[in-house]
């Protein structure tokens, strides 16, 4: 009996050790829904950083990070909240990479991250409204706010000599925020907006929407939507009816799948996606290509890697896996001063932190958080050439 008890106790302590070595981090993204063709590569990029950290063996005396994926659906606030709740309470993750779309992120921050004191870093939620959300300091994002994207895109459109556009936006936080910041900037520059109409995602038919947009008389159509959803439906119908030939697109529409499906027919269409001439770009391109992720083929891959890397470094700086302790260190590791850390150098960063030195994580996208947890960000001007998106210029 004694032996049995002893054996049980040993077994229990052994399994206890095994669990203590693994740290769970949630990867909360819309794996189904309107951006389902973007999220697999984003999640893979985040997991790349976690793997790098785990393989180095330098994190908190050799702890491993186990990413736990969960589907936040992109559009359904209730589903996203439930998914985040599950990660936080039953999987006991120490932090979250996510969520992916603006509306669901608002719900996750308000209902789960802030009340439970769990750090959430979104690689792709871009609504301007998230800047002023009451997050108690637990929400950051590595993607820049659309307040800036709208301004950049308006300038590009004007520079190309286009003086009148029609706008259609997806009827949610992301579409509305972008449409507002774009219209404001474009009208300031002297541009005319013939019509600014919303569309609903998930409809079978966009004939009526396109008919109204075509009737406005503008020659170019700005689409603030999603490439797997209404945005694509609108472009497809506009092409079918011959209403528009050139489209102006924002980040939700810039992706390989969209170019593969419709690229040949929308030659000369252009748009913006987050990205730029960064110090860490070459290093990121190399590791991404090594993992079969095309770093320039779609948005938010570098941002996802950065979000994951920051969580790992903050954990090291906090010397614990405590949720609040991680949150307290995030700005220390992300911002200057300190030794600069590029993608692929996470092992070096972890060692420096362990030695008590200060680091400044630069990463794939020049991360530098302001007081609201936003990054300044720059944008890549993309254009369809030969049926594919090509990067033209950095703004």
């Amino acid at each position, binding site marked *: 009996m004694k032996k049995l008890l002893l054996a049980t106790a040993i077994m229990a302590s052994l399994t206890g050790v095994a669990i203590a070595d693994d740290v769970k981090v949630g990867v909360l993204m819309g794996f189904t829904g309107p951006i389902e063709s973007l999220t697999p590569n984003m999640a893979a990029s985040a997991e790349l950083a976690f793997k790098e950290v785990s393989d180095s063996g330098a994190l908190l005396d050799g702890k491993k990070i186990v990413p736990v994926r969960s589907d936040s659906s992109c559009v359904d606030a209730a589903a996203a909240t439930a998914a985040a709740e599950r990660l936080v309470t039953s999987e006991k993750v120490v932090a979250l990479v996510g969520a992916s779309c603006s509306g669901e992120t608002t719900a996750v921050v308000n209902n789960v991250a802030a009340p439970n004191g769990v750090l959430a870093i979104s690689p792709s939620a871009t609504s301007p409204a998230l800047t002023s959300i009451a997050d108690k300091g637990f929400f950051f994002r590595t993607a820049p706010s659309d307040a800036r994207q709208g301004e950049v895109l308006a300038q590009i459109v004007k520079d190309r000599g286009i003086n009148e556009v029609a706008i259609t936006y997806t009827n949610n936080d992301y579409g509305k925020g972008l449409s507002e910041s774009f219209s404001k900037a474009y009208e300031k520059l002297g541009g005319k907006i013939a019509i600014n109409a919303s569309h609903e995602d998930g409809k079978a038919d966009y004939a009526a929407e396109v*008919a109204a947009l075509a009737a406005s008389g503008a020659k170019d159509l700005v689409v603030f939507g999603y490439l797997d959803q209404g945005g694509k439906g609108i472009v497809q119908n506009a092409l079918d009816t011959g209403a528009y030939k050139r489209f102006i697109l924002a980040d939700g529409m810039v992706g390989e799948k969209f170019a593969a499906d419709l690229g040949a027919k929308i030659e000369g269409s252009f748009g913006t996606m987050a990205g730029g001439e960064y110090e860490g770009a070459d290093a990121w391109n190399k590791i991404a290509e090594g993992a079969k992720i095309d770093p320039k083929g779609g948005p938010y891959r570098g941002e996802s890697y950065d979000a994951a890397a920051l969580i790992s470094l903050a954990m090291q700086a906090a010397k614990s896996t405590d949720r609040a302790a991680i949150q307290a260190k995030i700005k220390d590791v992300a911002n200057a001063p300190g030794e600069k850390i590029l993608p692929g150098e996470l092992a070096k960063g972890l060692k420096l932190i362990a030695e008590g030195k200060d680091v400044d994580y630069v990463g794939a996208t020049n991360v530098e958080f302001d007081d609201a947890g936003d990054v300044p960000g720059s944008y890549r001007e993309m254009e369809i050439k030969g049926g594919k998106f090509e990067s033209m210029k950095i703004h």
Partner: protein
Amino acid sequence: MTDYLNALVVFANFVFVPALTYGCQLALGSLGVTMIYSVLRFSNFAQGETMAFGTVITIMVTWGLQSMGITLGFLPTALLALPIGILVTALLLLATDRYVYRYYRTKRSKSITFVMASLGVMFIMNGLVRLLLGPNDQNFADGERFFLSADAFRAWSGLDEALVIRTSQALTIILAIILVAALFWFLQRTKTGKAMRAYADNENLALLSGINPDRIVRITWIITAALATVAGVLYGLDKGYKPLSYYNLLLPIFAAVIVGGIGKPIGAIVGGFIIAFSEVIVTYAYKKVLTYVLPTDMAPDGLVQLLSTEYKFAVSFVILVIVLLVKPTGIFKGKVL
């Protein structure tokens, strides 16, 4: 003169052709509902899902054919798969009749009992459809996309505006005309058709004159399966397959049936077109058309749009309510629900 032609082309491209296509799809769907109503005397709520089921089977057969390398050239392969889709759907409907509706028929249950039973059938088919093909969008259109493309039209006419007719739109209109003609010929000219009409008019009298009721019921289900599958496949080819949009079709279909007069085949067709045209006409922005037609100084600044496109579905609701209030029997004096 060219201005008027341009205006006409714009109107045809954005209003007339889409509405005509949508109207044909609604008409075929509504015919199924009206047939069931007149013969079996209940409103079949499972009609939308029946259309989805027929489409799912057709899509699966289409993929099978494509993987064997069989296509139809410039026409969509789905046309080849259509007969199998109809057959399987007919078998499913006959099975539901055998195991659900027949019980209530022999018990001579009230019409509302049938309606509730059909609601249950709808939910089961709803799940079945998603089990077979999942809840996601499927695109199964192949072959030539355009019957008349924008560039071809511009080159031919020399106008600024273009009229585009997609293959799926042309097919919808042609198939709808053939099917409706065949249905009316069947109902008016054949012995079975006449028996069906007699049974619908007066059940007891029909039974006395030796009409076999089981046979009439079976044929009604088979015709409904054919109409629903063709309507569903055409809708899917035209707008892409998505399970939820078939469920959403239920409202315009019932609106069409009631506006036309329930139980009247001709009413279902007219009702389908009324609903389709009013949805598109009310939500279209007329700025471009008016700019061509009116003198330059009178051209409108605004969009001249009566209702924003978000309210499209509300249009069928409003028409439905007005008809029920003003003329509950519908245009062709059908039955009152």
